[in-house]
Each structure stands twice: as C-alpha cells, then as structure tokens.
C-alpha cells in the first residue's frame, strides 16, 4: 500500500502544494518535486509557432506571392521541434518542472485556498508533455514541408492564409499540451478548434467545406462546454485550476481508490471526470460527437493529416492522460471511457468498410483508432494508449499524405472505384510504398510494424483487465475489420490493373469561374491543374496524372522510414513499450492501483494477444486480398460486390454511416431550428406585441376620450359649468360638518 502511494507521489509530481505547504511524504521514498523553474527555452516552442503565424500574417498583409510563408513555417516549426527535443533532454535529467511565462487571468479575493482564480501562462513540463510535443512539432514540420508543395497552386492566394492557420494550430496545440492549468489547456483546446475551423473551411467557396467547418466547430463546442464545466467543477472542488495543486488534492482520494472505497470520495470530485470526458469525446471524435471528423476531410489533405489524424484529435486522449488521476478516482469514469472508445472503434470501422472515398475511409479509421486509444485509457493501459497515439500519428499521417498525393495527382479523385494500380504508375512508386507501409501499420501486421505493438498493448490490456473482457472482444473484432478495410483501399487503388478517371475538380473550377475567372481559377479546387484548359471535354482527354514532386516524396519517405523506426524506441528500450512506456510511467498518466490480471483462455493475456491479434489482422488482410485483388480486372468492380446482397440492408446502412447525421439532424438540429423560428415569432408577436399593446393602450384611451373634445363651444362650456358645480359641491360637502 505504501509502495503504491510512493509510486503515486512520483507519478503525481504534485507533492508541493500551491501555497508552499509540503505534502506529507510517504516513508521510504523522497517525493518527486516539481521544479518551480523549468527551462526558459520551453517558451520558445509556442513562441516560434506564433512567430511563424505572425510572419505569415504579415506575408498575407503584404500579399506575398511566393512560397516564403511555407519556408518560414517549416523553419519555425523545425526550430520548435528542436526546442522540444532539448526540453525533453532537460526534463529527462531534471524531472518535471513548471516554466512560468506571465500572469494571465487573476481574480483574487482572499488569501486562503480557493479564494483566488489564477490561471497563468505557464508550462507544465513532464515526459508526457515532451512525448506529445515531440511528435506534434516533428510531424507538423514534415507536413508543412509536404504542404509547401501540395498547396503550391494557391501561391499568392490562400497560401499565406493556409500557413498562418497552420502555425497558429501548432501554437494552440503547444498551449494545450504544455499548459500548467486547465484554463491554458482550454485556450489551446479552443485554439486548435479555431484552426481546425479555418483549415477545414480553407476552400471557402465550396459550401460543403464551409458546412463541414461549421459543423466541426459547433460539435467541438458541445464538447468544450463539458470541458469548461469540468474545469469549473474542478475549481469549485479543489479551489484551483493548476494541475500541480489539483493533483495534490487528488492524492488523498487516490488512497480510497486503491482501497476500492469509492464511497469515501466525494461525488463532486467524481463528477469532474465525467465532465472532462465530454470534452475529450468532442475533440477526439468519439461517440456521440464523432460526426464532425469525417466531414472535416473537406479541408486540404495536409490539414487532415496533421490535425484530423495525428495531433489535434489526440487532444482528448492527452486530456484524459494528463488528468488520469482524476479519472481514476471516479468510480465509473474509466469504464465509460472504455465502452465509448470500444463502441466508437467498432461503429467507425463498420462505416469505414462501406465507404468508397479513400479519404473518408481514412477518416473513419481515425475515429476507430481513436476509439482504440480511449479504450486503452479506459482499461487502465495508458501506456498502450499513448503508444498508439504515437505510432498512429506517424502512420496515419503517412496514409493521409499518400491519399493526398493521389488526390493531388488525379484532380481530386478519391473514389476507389475509379482508381486502380496507382502504385505501379511511373513516379508513384514512393507513394505506393508509403501507402503499403501505412496500411501494414494500420492493419497491425505482426512483429514488423509499430502499429501492431501499440494495438497489441491495448488489446492485451483489455483482456488483462477482469472488468473489460467484452471490450477486448469488441476491439479484437474491430482489429479484423480494420485490417480488411485498410487493405481494401490498398488492393483496389495501389495495385492491380492501371486505371484512372480524373476527379471533378477541373470541372468544379470551371463552374466557379464564370464571372470571376481569375479568382476562381486558383481557388475552390484541390489539386486541379492550372495548365489544363477549362474545356471539360479536353480535360478528360488530355488528363495526365500529376506525379508528386520532391517535397511530397521526401516527406513520405521520411514518414515511411520513421513508421518502422518508431518500433525501435518501443521495443529496444526495456519496459512495457520501452521509451513511450517510460515517458508515460514518469508522468501523471501513470495507471496505478493493482488489479488481478485476467487470463485469456488460460494464457497470459498479453502474450496470447500477440498471437491472436496477428491472426486476426492477417485474416483481415487475406479477406481483402481475396475480395478486392485476386482476379480483379477493372477499377470499378470486385468480388466483394457479389457478396453485398448477403448483408441485406446493412451494407447500405453502413455506407450511409448508419444515418447518424440524419438522426442528429432530425433529433437536434431540426427541433432547434423549429424552436428558433417559434421563438422568433413569439418575439415578434408576443413579446414585442405586448410592448406595442402597451404603447397602444394610451392611444386607445385617447380614442375613447376623443369625442369629449367635440370642438363645440357649448360642450366645453357645459363641462366647465358642470365642473364648477361639482367642484363647489365637493368643497361644500367637504367643509360642512353635518
């Protein structure tokens, strides 16, 4: 028991209370103290990002018509990445620390605990922070490089805007991850939401992009509300929003948690986790708030890769990992997280199986994999979840970038029925290889892929947890489905007979270009060729795939290599999941408490899973091979088509995303809209009507009294005489004592 408490001390890194009171240290272990002064240069991480933003904004202001903003961004983000590495070096040698920057929100009304609301610009640096910052800045640099070529057709138009928002995103993400309090986290949280909004709506002339951006922001706001309420509850209960102090407060409850005595933990404290969870579900696209992420693919592909696959969507995972102690002291919170994650994983996988748009398939796979991560957190294997975040970031980014390269080259074509054999076309070799690597990772190809190891950790954790067996089965099923739909894409698009039909974006920009020929030419399409004529007929005849250039290829190559390289830190360094494991164990995300390890049919769950999940993954790939590769002669058809009727309406429903969007529309948006119209009518005719009626009242009285002003002399005289008589009578009666 005391040992666990000691570990907790190390994990919580919060032994020193906010006001200098030394928390009682458990015997035998010196508590890990949080250094008050972290490395000053941690500030540079967001500063470089915001500097990139400001410079890009300046470029926009001066209407720079070159690739300058891209190089600024790449340079600044690379610098951020370098700083992240050195911060990591500092943290690994000095332990967790807080770097204070400046005071932000201070409302102080007393000296005691809870009598001040303090949220500073200060950074909480521990290994979890470093893990996230390393891959965020690293991937951001690479993707910025990729985007410098990918967005080149917009140079001088939206190019500046793109990179400004891109840099702002990295800044926000840095605030989110490095925050030392919930409020700064909230700033980053909403900041990434804003950038996501701006970047999804990058092609703002497309109504669908605008709608998707709006949807993303609003759905995220729903989650944000829960997060905000969670923060408030946290403040009310702990009297602070700073992690250090909050974790110090949680520490007491951890003991009850370890003893399983949840009834000794105040319900208010337990509720915090549920509210924070809502925020995480929104940002990380989990049930029931996942609907925005597939639509978010309207944005440029680098955005999808960075924001909607690798980094921003893992913010929810980060939040839960960061506040893991708060989740642990809540009796059902982690169970809820696990269930929501598992169900999301399954649901998204089923939808992904039935889609034809390869980017959308990737989007649903992202939702599904995020579900995995949540399930991992929920079954108390935060290490597995973090590792999956880490590996997923690389291979999913790579998958998106590969899809983006295809889209870029084939004029926005994403339909897997209209593309085939891309990987064997000249100039597309690297894309094909990168895609294969990504697919192998995503499908969990045994042993040689990093994705296999991280997914395996989650599966093993689920089966090892005695309360999460059913979650384990769901996840296992999902793993098979994932392997199938991943390779469905690969087998149909990248191998097999060569065939392509260009996308509709050439036409699209024709449609746009009627009255704004110059603007429309460069805007509103993704990957269209400027060199091509506007003539529709000519477009389809003369179309040549536009093979990716050096920047895209370089990035894909780096990512493909790193997707394998990340196995090294996972497996070469001792401990569960090696380096990532160390990073997580040394931070607040460490899972504590002892539970009995459940067995998987008598075997150790982790070891058994290595075999079982390998088999499942390979089986998925095999099915995909049989259905979508073997004997396929054209792009549009495959053996799978013959199987479809066997599933009855299910396939159709899955293709229509189980009608969830329609359901939400019918259940929430429509009633709200009706309500809004109703309110508008009420406001006009009832609320304002009453006011007008009040205004009408004097007028009505006046109209009533109007005949008395007949304008006739006699009338007035009569009134006057009568009035005098009445007045005299009154005076007489009043003054006479009877």
């Amino acid at each position: 028991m005391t040992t666990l408490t000691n570990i907790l001390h190390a994990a919580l890194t919060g032994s020193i209370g906010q006001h200098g009171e030394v928390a009682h240290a458990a015997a035998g272990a010196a508590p890990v103290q949080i250094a008050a002064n972290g490395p000053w240069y941690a500030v540079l991480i967001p500063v470089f990002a915001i500097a990139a933003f400001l410079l890009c904004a300046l470029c926009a202001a001066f209407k720079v018509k070159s690739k300058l903003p891209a190089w600024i961004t790449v340079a600044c983000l690379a610098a951020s990445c370098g700083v992240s590495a050195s911060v990591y070096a500092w943290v690994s040698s000095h332990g967790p620390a807080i770097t204070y920057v400046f005071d932000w929100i201070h409302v102080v009304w007393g000296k005691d605990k809870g009598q001040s609301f303090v949220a500073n610009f200060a950074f909480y640096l521990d290994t979890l922070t470093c893990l996230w910052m390393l891959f965020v800045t690293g991937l951001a640099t690479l993707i910025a490089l990729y985007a410098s070529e990918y967005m080149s057709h917009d140079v001088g138009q939206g190019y500046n805007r793109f990179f400004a928002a891109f840099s702002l995103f990295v800044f926000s993400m840095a605030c989110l991850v490095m925050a030392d309090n919930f409020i700064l986290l909230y700033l980053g949280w909403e900041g990434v939401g804003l950038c996501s909004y701006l970047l999804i709506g990058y092609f703002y002339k497309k109504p669908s992009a605008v709608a998707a951006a709006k949807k993303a922001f609003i759905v995220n706001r729903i989650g944000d509300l829960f997060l905000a309420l969670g923060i408030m509850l946290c403040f009310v209960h702990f009297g602070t929003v700073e992690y250090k102090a909050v974790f110090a407060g949680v520490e007491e409850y951890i003991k009850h948690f370890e003893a399983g005595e949840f009834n000794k933990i105040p319900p208010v404290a337990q509720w915090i986790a549920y509210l924070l969870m809502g925020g995480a579900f929104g940002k990380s696209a989990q049930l029931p708030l996942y609907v925005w992420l597939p639509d978010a693919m309207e944005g440029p592909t680098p955005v999808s890769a960075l924001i909607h696959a690798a980094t921003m969507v893992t913010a929810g995972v980060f939040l839960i990992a960061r506040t893991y102690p708060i989740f642990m002291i809540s009796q059902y919170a982690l169970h809820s997280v696990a269930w929501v994650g598992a169900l999301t994983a399954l649901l998204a996988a089923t939808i992904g199986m039935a889609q034809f748009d390869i980017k959308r398939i990737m989007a649903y796979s992202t939702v599904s994999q995020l579900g995995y991560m949540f399930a991992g957190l929920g079954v108390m294997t935060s290490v597995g979840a973090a590792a999956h975040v880490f590996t997923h970031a690389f291979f999913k980014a790579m998958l998106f970038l590969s899809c983006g390269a295809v889209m870029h080259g084939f004029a926005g074509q994403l339909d897997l029925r209209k593309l085939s054999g891309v990987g064997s076309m000249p100039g597309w070799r690297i894309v094909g290889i990168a895609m294969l690597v990504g697919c192998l990772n995503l499908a969990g190809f045994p042993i040689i892929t990093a994705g296999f190891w991280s997914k395996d950790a989650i599966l093993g954790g689920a089966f090892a947890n005695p309360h999460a067996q059913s979650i384990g089965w769901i996840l296992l099923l999902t793993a098979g489905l994932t392997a199938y739909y991943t390779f469905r894409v690969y087998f149909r698009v990248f191998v097999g007979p060569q065939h392509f039909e260009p996308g509709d974006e050439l036409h699209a920009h024709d449609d746009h270009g009627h009255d704004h020929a110059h603007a429309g030419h460069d805007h509103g399409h993704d990957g269209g060729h400027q060199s091509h004529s506007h003539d529709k007929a000519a477009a389809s005849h003369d179309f040549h795939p536009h093979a990716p250039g050096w920047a895209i290829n370089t990035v894909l190559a780096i990512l493909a290599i790193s997707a394998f390289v990340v196995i090294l830190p996972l497996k070469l360094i001792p401990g569960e999941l090696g380096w990532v494991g160390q990073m997580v164990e040394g931070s607040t995300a460490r899972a504590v408490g002892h539970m009995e390890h459940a067995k998987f049919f008598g075997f150790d769950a982790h070891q058994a899973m290595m075999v079982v999940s390998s088999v499942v993954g390979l089986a998925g790939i095999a099915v995909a091979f049989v259905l979508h590769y073997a004997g396929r002669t054209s792009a549009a058809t495959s053996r799978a088509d013959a199987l479809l009727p066997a599933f009855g309406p299910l396939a159709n429903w899955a293709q229509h995303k189980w009608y969830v969007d329609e359901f939400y529309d019918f259940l929430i948006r429509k009633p709200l809209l009706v309500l809004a119209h109703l309110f508008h009518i009420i406001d006009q005719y009832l609320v304002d009507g009453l006011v007008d009626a009040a205004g009408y009242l004097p007028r009505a009285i006046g109209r009533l009294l109007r005949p008395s002003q007949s304008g006739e002399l006699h009338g007035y005289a009569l009134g006057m005489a009568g009035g005098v008589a009445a007045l005299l009578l009154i005076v007489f009666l009043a003054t006479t004592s009877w």
Partner: protein
Amino acid sequence: MIQVLQTLAQSGFPDRMHAATLSHFLLVSALMFVIGLIGFLTRRNLIIMFLCTELMFQAAGIALVAFGRYHLDFSGQTFVIFVLTVAAAEAAMALALVVLLFRRRESLNAEEWKELRG
C-alpha cells in the same frame, strides 16, 4: 321722481344691513347668473351667447355691490368698475371676433366652428 330716488337712496345707508336682506340680493344675483349661464349653454347665436356672459357679469356686479353694502366697504363697487371695464374690453374684442367669424362663415351659429375637435 326725486322722491322715488330719495327713497331708494335712503335704504338705510350708512346703517347696517341685515344678513337676511343681503341674502335677497344674493338670491337675485345667483338667479341672474344661472339664467345667464343657461342662456350661454343653450343659445347658439354667438351674439346672444355674449349677451349671456354680460348677464353673468351683471349678476356678479349685483353680488359685489350687495356685499359691499353689507360690509360698508366700497371695494365692492370699485370691483364693479373693473367688471365693467373687462366687460367693455370683452365686448370690443368679442364683437370684433364675431364680425370676423361671421364674415368667414356667413353664420352666427357657434356650432359652425369645431376646429378644436379632437
């Protein structure tokens, strides 16, 4: 004639006048006033309406003089002079207006003018 006038003038001045005697005059005054008022209210001819106002002035004058007699104070009579003045002024103005109005509508009917109707 002289006799009659002397009899009239010798109605006790400067002796006191009894309140009961005073009330006779006041009753006449009130009656005359009310008759004037009713005339003002019922007649439509502008000139007669003005005559009725003069009747009311007259009634007021009687009351003033009667009270002055009762109190042996001449301010009552002085006020009648002022009433007379006002009546004269009013007559001048009012009649000028009546002529003006008559020229405009060819009628003395007070009901012809209803411009103040609300």
